[in-house]
């Protein structure tokens, strides 16, 4: 079976503003991109947006395509860019509970010295494995995706995160005791 061949002449016509040529490219690219994004993220409602955004990228950037015969690589780049934006947009840093940038309303102790705890020291508590998992999470990957990337199970990944949180909680308690004891 032949791989899809996009006629470079047609791509050139689309670059020159030929709407029919562009619509034909669109008609053929759309199912291909849809199949790709379904393969990557599953049959999620976001697939439609990813497809449309990628087509927009291809459309907007078509003038930059110097070699009309390289449409595949060009479309690939657009799709990969779109995935990166997708991962970044997944998590909103504003937590659903206790946004740390707001005053900790539930901490009534005016002598609370926890704000002075060094975040860098807290990072040192993490094992290399836990740190890698958390970095991947902050990059925007789901835990199941992280499990695939690390060739393990989602359950094992979550166990690492839970353990890291508990370790950090214990370390923080010890650090706060020291802070209190030395009056730092």
């Amino acid at each position, binding site marked *: 079976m032949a791989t899809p061949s996009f006629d470079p002449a047609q791509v050139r016509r689309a670059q020159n503003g030929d709407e029919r040529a562009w619509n034909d490219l669109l008609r053929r690219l759309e199912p291909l991109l849809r199949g790709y994004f379904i393969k*990557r993220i599953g049959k999620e409602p976001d697939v439609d947006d990813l497809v449309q955004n990628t087509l927009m990228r291809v459309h907007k950037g078509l003038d930059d395509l110097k070699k009309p015969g390289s449409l595949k690589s060009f479309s*690939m780049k657009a799709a990969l860019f779109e995935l990166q934006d997708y991962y970044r947009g997944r998590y909103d840093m504003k937590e659903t509970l206790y946004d740390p940038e707001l005053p900790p309303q539930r901490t009534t102790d005016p002598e609370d010295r*926890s704000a002075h705890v060094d975040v860098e020291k807290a990072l040192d508590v993490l094992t290399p494995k836990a740190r890698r998992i958390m970095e991947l999470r902050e990059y925007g990957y789901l835990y199941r995706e992280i499990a695939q990337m690390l060739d393990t199970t989602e359950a094992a990944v979550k166990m690492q995160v839970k353990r890291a949180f508990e370790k950090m909680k214990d370390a923080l*308690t010890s650090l706060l005791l020291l802070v209190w004891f030395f009056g730092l």
Partner: protein
Amino acid sequence: MMEDLYETLLFGGDLSPQERSSIEDRLDDDPDLVKAWSHWCLVRRRLRDRLHEHISDRRLLVLYVLDQEGHDDALTAHEREALEAARDELDRAVAAVPALETIVDRIRDERDDFEMVWASHGEDGHQHQTTLRSEAESGQNGTPDRAERAARPPHERDQDRGSRRWARRLAIATVGLVLAVAGILFWPEESAVTTVTVADGDVQVEVLGDGSTVRLVGPATLSYPAEDTETAVRRVTLEEGRAFFDVQRRSDHASFVVETPTAVATVLGTQFGVSMQADTTNVVLATGSVRVAREEETEDGGVVLEPGQHSWVAKEGRVAAPKPVDLTTALDWTGLFVFRSVPIETIAERLNQRYDVQVTVAESLTGEAVTGTFEREQPVEEVLGALAATLGANVHQEGSDQYRLVPAP
């Protein structure tokens, strides 16, 4: 209860107003936990900031991979300049943040998948696989259950391509001795057929008309009659991929037949896994009874598997003699733990490896055999709870990741 709270805080996602209120009430009673949670968020923010400090523009990672993989024709002149200017920065970033190396590998996988999808589409832009239809078209719920998704084993790209090429050849050729991929040769034209295709990395469970279930581990394609017609033979076709069957025994003893491009497995009521990859069908039997044969063999031909055995059939090859197999390992790809009369201490070892925890067993329980099937994505506490219930035992948690099974008082 604390475990539930941790689970919700760390992995809870979107909460209803009632759930949020309940969690906040519980946190009111634990100011230390509130502080810890607040600092956890600060740590996460720091990690995020650090990622951004090292890689200010994520597109550079994509350009890096495209350049390495020979797609420099995709880069504009400006992008090429930006990549060259950032090359040292990228090398330093990958050295400083190990997760970036993992991310670069993932982008390579994404690139590979694009190549594969591009190659599988024809001139008209539509995918040319002989039985591919969307779940929407077939009336099935196509959305994979999030809880079902399993970790993907190392990507066997050559085997994927090999099995797809084989599936396409079978669709074209008239096959006498092996099974037709499209299923056209098996079902009368007037029979409605449901075809389910599961994407790579996804897991989907199909419930058939007779109550049997099929757990498909993507990439996989399965066809079966749209309606249970009470015939003497229930027949499904696994065109490619892997599936774990839990077949309900019928009162009329109708057999259940699983066909692949190279083999036929006939069962009466059982649990077994079938894997169709790289022109070879592999059948692993967990419970019940299965006969594995080439399609042209008579009812007396082929081999009969007993629980804990497997066999395989390659294209134009003979059916291999049954061999014993470790069920848990052989069915690892299903995303399930499958135990058949396995001593509890052996199960504990498996859980230790899988979850990276420490599970011990009281001496009075050692040697007790357990038969059962568990989802690997279940929290370890749930699996242990089920095991304890089976044994009439209790689970004691002795540390953050230490558990002990002891007899119930």
